[in-house]
């Protein structure tokens, strides 16, 4: 297996150094860029499978780079940003970034995020058709039949709750902003009403999380949006548990990625 190629865009040499060391220890090939211009050249010549991008670059902002990159590549982009710049983070996510880390961040956290996004990207590219059954924790969701179960017990979701859940599942662990969620669940007229998402998210947690006060899967990214953590395409076990027959075994395309 070839080493995953990572493009690291960061103007601070010391930060570049420790990120590079950490990722190389994970067996990845890291290419560095210290400015937006170098990043564009690096992205074109190296064809990275993932980009780690600092938003504050000396020669222009990282958002423009993400927009350009999204024109021809679907490689995950992990944004590094300072705490004060919530709006920048949201804007970066909305132009196509996949996730963000707030400075200062821990190395284990960075490595975990990079690996998770690489895994997700390889899954999506290896298997174009998304599996119809998705599992996270004790919850199984059948996207084809709109059935949701927790610990094998069917859970009733309202249409909007299901749409919200599907939007998070489609993100495959990406951070999805309030606006994106509002657009895909309620439509353009609602994009300035983030409280809708918060109310429905609370309902989803009450129905799906083991401890709704400390959610493990429906994770809040405060003032940015939400993320579905611990997601993996599941085997077709939902239905057998539900004792609805064995026809679900025909979902041969389901991939396990343990």
């Amino acid at each position, binding site marked *: 297996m070839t080493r995953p190629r990572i493009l690291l865009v960061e103007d601070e040499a010391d930060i570049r150094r420790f990120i590079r060391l950490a990722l190389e220890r994970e067996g990845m090939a890291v290419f560095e860029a210290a400015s937006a211009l170098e990043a564009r050249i690096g992205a074109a010549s190296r064809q990275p499978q993932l980009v780690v991008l600092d938003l504050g670059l000396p020669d222009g902002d990282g958002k423009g780079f993400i927009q350009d990159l999204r024109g021809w590549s679907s490689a995950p982009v992990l944004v590094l940003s300072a*705490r004060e710049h*919530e709006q920048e983070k949201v804007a970066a996510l909305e132009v196509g970034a996949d996730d963000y880390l707030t400075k*200062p961040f*821990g190395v284990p956290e960075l490595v975990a995020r990079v690996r998770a996004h690489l895994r997700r990207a390889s899954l999506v590219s290896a298997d174009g058709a998304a599996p119809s059954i998705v599992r996270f924790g004790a919850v199984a969701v059948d996207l084809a039949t709109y059935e949701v179960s927790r610990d094998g017990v069917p859970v009733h979701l*309202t*249409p*909007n709750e299901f749409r919200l859940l599907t939007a998070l599942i489609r993100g495959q662990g990406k951070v999805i902003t309030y606006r994106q969620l509002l657009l895909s669940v309620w439509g353009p007229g609602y994009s300035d*009403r*983030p*409280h*809708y998402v*918060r*109310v429905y*998210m*609370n309902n989803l*947690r*009450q129905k799906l999380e083991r*401890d*709704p*006060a*400390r*959610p493990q899967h429906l*994770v*809040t990214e*405060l*003032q940015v949006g939400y993320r579905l953590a611990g997601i993996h395409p599941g085997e077709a076990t939902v239905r057998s548990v539900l004792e609805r027959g064995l026809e679900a075994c025909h979902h041969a395309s389901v991939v396990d990625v343990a």
Partner: protein
Amino acid sequence: MPHLKSMRFMPWLASRASWLGRAWDFERGVVGGTPWRGLLPALLACGAATLLAALLLRVFDLSNVVILFLFTVVLVSLRWGRMAGAVAALLGVVSFDFFFVPPIFSFHVSDTQYLFTFTLTLVVGLVTGQLAARLREEAASAAAGEQRATALASIASQLSAASSVEEVQAVCAQAMAPMFDAQGYLWFSRHADMRTPMVEGFDEAVAHWVGEHARSAPCASVSSGAWYRYVPLISPMGAGGVLVWRGDALASSLGHEQQRLLEACSALIGQALVRIHFADMAREAQVRVEGERFRHTLLAAVSHDLKTPLTAIRGMAETLELADALPVGDRVAVAGAIRHQADALHRQVINLLDLARIQGHGVCLYPEWHAIGEVVESALASAAASLGERCIHVTLDADLPLVQLDAALFERVLANLLDNAAKYTPCDACVEVGARVHEGALHLYVEDDGPGLPAGVDAESLFAPFARGVQESAISGVGLGLALCRSIVEAHGGVMDAQAREPTGVRFAIHVPLHRPPMVEPEPQ
């Protein structure tokens, strides 16, 4: 005078007096009006007196009837002033001569003694008329003066209560405007930010000229046809203040009284502005002094609490550099310690920056409707490293309403409280975070079962900046966290306090008022 002596009771006087009472109106007198205004009423009054005299002549003597004309003169003077009174006196004599003195319907006089009667009547009429008119004018002017004094006193008291230029503007618009039947605005030629939005037709160039030259100017707007009057305000702050009046009542030149009233008002406003200006300056100076003191204390505390972890980090990093002989276990321990110190430093820097921002321009909130559970979740995530192995309980009611708050700042409050709990409790302590609705307020608490507050420490004193339970303890951290928390909670209209928890530990409680959350349309089924 023989005529006066023989005068008898006249029954029409009563009805006449009641009419007089109804029509009597000192408020809108001849003061400031035109002198010719009363001529027509004088003419009519004389006509009426003539008709009445014709009726009375059947009963009374001719010599008594002349008194009726004198009485008319007095009434007309009282009601319409000197000129009308004089005209009434003249008309009365002429009418008496023409209609009643034989030969009737002729100005000829058969008996020369009537010439004496005419002259006397005219003189008495003119004199009493003038006296009555003057009485009336004085009464009117006294009433107007009293009214002016009352109005000025009321304006002065309102202005003395005003503590900002905006409030002076409000007094100007609400109290003074009705007095002049016009709208009043304040305008400052050198303080663009203090100007009120002006109505159409306001001429900035004129106002500017008035402000700079301190001379009053009446002016009509060409575009809107409205009348303006620009009055300069005397103010030492050199703001070039101008009081702008707008109203059709200003079209004619103002009467003497009105003019004086306007000047008095301008002077009052000028004084109020001066007072506000100096009060502001005093307050600013006070704030500056407090700020200096705060900065001094802050610097002292910061230099200690920031240098300590920096020294540790630097020393440990140098130890690692020369780590040839260091066993692997020690190396890992030193690196871990560097990370801990860096985390502590990071938290302090965040608190310092937040506090500096709040001290700088007050708490600037970006409130939105949030689920408090999500804020708790984020705070737990950001304090996860410092909480370590401590057991955490989260108790949130399932049906908590949305709360309007600035999530980023509130997360700082909870994260600080959790960091605090971690800092002052042993590693096996339990920390509980909870939220519930109680009596229309959101009740949030963070408590631990650690050693609690040291003996002799007042819980309230923890919230003063740089306070710490144990002075100069080994635990670092500028005592900013709780001061910051309290400012943030108070900016949300809430209260925050600390209590000892039974049997051991501390409980920090926050109450935030709840408002009606926005509607969420129910889903169509």
